[in-house]
């Protein structure tokens, strides 16, 4: 039984579509989870959600206009990053209300234009749920072109990123151009979201950004380990999700996201950050004794 399954697993690796999917999982998993560390550590999760839905809205609008959906996704996500970044940096609004409005506008635009697309809406629906088993060379190239700058930025500007994650006002006060860095990181988030839109899907992409990073955040106090663990968990979620999707005939993007959520709950359960110091109950002392 087991050797048979193993042979089947080896066999599927020979298919080109599976090789593409695994490569997309590797590149997308690394890029999304590294960007996720920035978003989670700076406590800007909702900003990331808004940017990812802006990418989805842009892609759907591009499909409606007969353009390449990736173009729309890039334009909208970068535009959202350019608008939300400065507003968030200056603390001019409370994220829970203003971002909620941006988020609902983007969802509204997505479904409005989806409804207006004439004929079958397969392309738009694929953008919603993703199609990791159908990625082509162009998708892989886009993912590669996005993953490399993400990796390079984090490696080369590690100390600046560490300062910004710690506290943006402190980073500014020690002489770093922290505001520019912050906008740059928002821009990188937008870029990653747009590049991962086709394989993972507009409604699911942000879970892949948030979950591996949030899981890794539960496990370490070291920023270097946090980046490493998040990338590992991101790729693990993608590859394990792909395997489940293939063997049980499930939708790829959704399976990846569900698995990454399971990993988060497991990390949360075993988190050293949740350890509570056990204090033994002091015995009652008889003062009359």
């Amino acid at each position, binding site marked *: 039984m087991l050797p048979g399954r193993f042979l089947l697993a080896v066999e599927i690796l020979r298919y080109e579509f599976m090789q593409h999917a695994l490569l997309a999982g590797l590149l997308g998993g690394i890029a999304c989870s590294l960007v996720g560390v920035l978003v989670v550590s700076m406590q800007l999760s909702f900003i990331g959600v808004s940017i990812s839905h802006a990418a989805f809205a842009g892609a759907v609008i591009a499909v409606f206009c007969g353009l390449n959906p990736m173009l729309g996704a890039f334009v909208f996500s970068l535009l959202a990053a350019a608008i939300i970044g400065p507003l968030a940096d200056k603390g001019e609004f409370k994220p829970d209300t203003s971002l909620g409005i941006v988020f609902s506008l983007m969802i509204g635009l997505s479904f409005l234009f989806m409804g207006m697309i004439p004929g079958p809406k397969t392309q738009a629906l694929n953008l919603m749920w993703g199609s990791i088993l159908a990625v082509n060379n162009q998708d892989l190239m886009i993912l590669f072109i996005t993953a490399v700058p993400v990796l390079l930025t984090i490696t080369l500007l590690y100390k600046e990123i560490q300062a910004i994650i710690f*506290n943006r006002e402190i980073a500014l*006060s020690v002489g770093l151009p922290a505001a520019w860095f912050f906008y740059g990181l928002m821009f990188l988030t937008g870029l990653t979201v747009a590049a991962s839109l086709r394989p993972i899907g507009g409604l699911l992409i942000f879970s892949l950004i948030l979950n591996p990073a949030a899981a890794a955040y539960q496990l370490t106090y070291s920023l270097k380990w946090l980046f490493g663990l998040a990338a590992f968990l991101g790729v693990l979620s993608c590859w394990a999700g792909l395997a489940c999707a293939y063997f049980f005939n499930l939708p790829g993007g959704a399976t990846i996201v569900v698995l990454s959520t399971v990993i988060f709950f497991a990390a949360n359960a075993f988190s050293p950050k949740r350890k509570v110091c056990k204090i033994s109950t002091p015995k009652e002392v008889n003062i009359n004794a």
Partner: protein
Amino acid sequence: MRDVVINMQNVTVSYREDVALQNLSIEIKNGEMIGIAGPNGAGKTTILTVVNGLGRLVRGQAKVLGHLMSAGKKGRDFRLCYKTASLRKLIGYVPQGCSVDPGTPISVRDAVMLGRYGRLGFWRRPGRDDWQVVGKLLEMVEISHLAERPFGHLSGGEQQRVAIARALAQEPRIMLLDEPTTYLDWRSRQEILQLIKQVHREKGLTTLMVTHDPKDTFNFCDRVVLLQQGRVAAIGPPAKTLSDAVLRKVYGESTICCQGGFY
């Protein structure tokens, strides 16, 4: 004669509809120790943010270490200005508290090292010399034993010591201290004030310190600026500026002035 290192001319700063500083003009010379006092909302912290270019000038100009920050006609913010970022490398800033998530992935040693990041410039990683400087500063503020702890696990007082060490790690020319003794117990307060005095003298710094501590805290200052509603109510030597009559005028008649303090 000592050079003027901070020169503010008719500085006005406002946060939306609230005016924090109004037409404030002040000159501070190299090596001076300036105490800043005043009731809540008088604009004490805002003065510090004007010096390091973190505040938004609505009117007037501030020249700090030769770097001119001018409000222009429409007012100006210097957060995105590269030249002001270079100026900040020379200014150590200890803010009033600093909200950091307890789970933030940074150790105490790294939190102090942040002070050297501006000096290091892009791409360069901290070298052995930088780590040695940080090690000595951790000893100086007596938190060497906490060096590997996550920063978010420290108490308010310990975090304040980290902030002072980080500001000193910049090897600054100007020190801005915004209520550096907040959260500190009585003994730690004395130690930190002693440390501030010592560092100010030894390094020849120009220091601006905001505090709500009793008035005897200001005894070691060369001058005290007493603010009221964004304007200078009094400026001069501590004994003269913080006289009972002036304090009653600024804080109200109900202020009880006793030996060494005002409450």
